[in-house]
């Protein structure tokens, strides 16, 4: 899918997520004490109640939890056919990223499809999108 995407407002919590792509990294907030990944990021670990968090680069691999092919052009400039998906990251099942599946025909997207992150630059941000893993 090509531009123009509505873009997120940056906060101290979400900025690394949206800018990690500059170095090719998918950065997810992580609890420094118990290693739980916190998404959406809040700066507080709901598992162990620690406030000591940082951003870690994850593998960028994940699986399609569910998806939908959009068929309607919602705003000028956006295409009318693209794949919206929830991708659960390989490191932790309950981190789900809302994203697009790119690099394949929409009809080829399936449940639990292994996917790998790639980034699309938009102004000062890098939007994490996912494509089928090579050979998947």
């Amino acid at each position: 899918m090509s531009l123009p995407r509505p873009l997120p407002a940056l906060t101290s919590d979400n900025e690394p997520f949206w800018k990690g792509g500059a170095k090719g990294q998918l950065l997810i907030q992580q609890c420094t004490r118990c290693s739980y990944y916190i998404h959406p990021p809040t700066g507080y670990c709901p598992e162990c109640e620690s406030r000591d968090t940082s951003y870690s680069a994850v593998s960028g691999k994940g699986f399609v939890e569910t998806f939908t092919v959009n068929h309607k052009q919602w705003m000028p400039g956006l295409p009318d056919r693209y794949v919206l998906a929830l991708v659960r990251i390989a490191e932790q099942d309950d981190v789900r990223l809302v994203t697009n599946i790119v690099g394949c025909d929409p009809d080829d997207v399936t449940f639990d499809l292994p996917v790998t992150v790639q980034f699309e630059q938009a102004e000062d941000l890098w939007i994490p999108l996912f494509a089928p893993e090579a050979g998947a």
Partner: protein
Amino acid sequence: MLKASITGIGMSQLGRNTQRPCIDLLADAALEAMSDAGLTRDDIDGLTTYPGKADNSPGMSPLGCTDVREALGLKTRWHSSSSEGPAQMSPLMIAAMAVSTGQARHVLCFRALTESSSQSPTRRASVATGTGARVGGWFSWLLPMGALSATNWAAQFAQRRMYEFGATREQLGAQCVLQRANAQLNARALFNGKPMTMEDYLNARMISDPLGMFDCDIPIDGACVIIVSASDAARDCRKPPITIAAMGAALGRDSWDQRADMTQMAALDACTDMWARTDLKPKDVDVAALYDGFSVFVPMWLEAFGFCKRGEGEAFIADGQTALTGSTPTNTGGGQMSAGRLHGFGHLHEACTQLWGEGGRRQVSKAQTAVVGMGGGPLAGAMLLQRA
């Protein structure tokens, strides 16, 4: 302990692109509800709404408590509106708690919309289109990916259910078609006079797989009022009061995408709480009014309330169980998909209509007990109503 009853209901004409002022619609609904309850404006001492005056989406909520109090000349001593709460049911729940604790005797709960008149070719009601400004909050995770409509969010639940349970479009369509048939028996329904066949349903334009045009509810202009009274004060009203027997509320994780089981919504948590607060059981329910912003919410609410097991909702519908003649008549007035989107207030209105035996040709015989489920995704409110 709740000591709250519903004593009157009112609804304006529901229309598309009426260009009527919102207060005009609201006044119709309010006067009808007060008359229904046998009350006058001097009896109304509380006022609630959801989400309060808001312009984040065109025509979504043009009126707040202040506007309504002022225009109707009410002398309320207590009011509340909140955009955060157990979905669209929050004004009813807050009113029930207010009358149970003596804050008010008769609370006028309202929902008024001009979504149809207010949407323009470039700014559709309930679609979060970008204004060029960067977006914050939970929209910031959805909009950059083109997840601009709730249709996109709901579709991902529907798709997962089809994958896990083998649910089909025809099964979802069965609910859409039966609600449209119910609307033919409801003169107030937007699509009264416009029947729909399964073929019409299946041939409709796809919006976001697997949800097509007729899986979505309809933005309208309209208003609805429900009066919640303290149970002791309710005895003086015109009609036998409808007791609010139990309520349950839920807030899921932020936002539509983080629930561990993507085949269920916060509805499950709200219903579980509701049943824990009553001796009644799902088998005691005569009629159900379940939020149908999208068709797939109906099977999810059916499962949440325990009318069938997890994964069986769509098959339960296809088996005819939600039809007027089924075990759990559901959305008997047409629901939001065929009567119009009053954000759950239409469901409350229809449940009360049935419990008062005022359903005319769509009346479920001997309806004494009803459930109402409102909300989708991470927001849910559940209510059990009983004819006194």
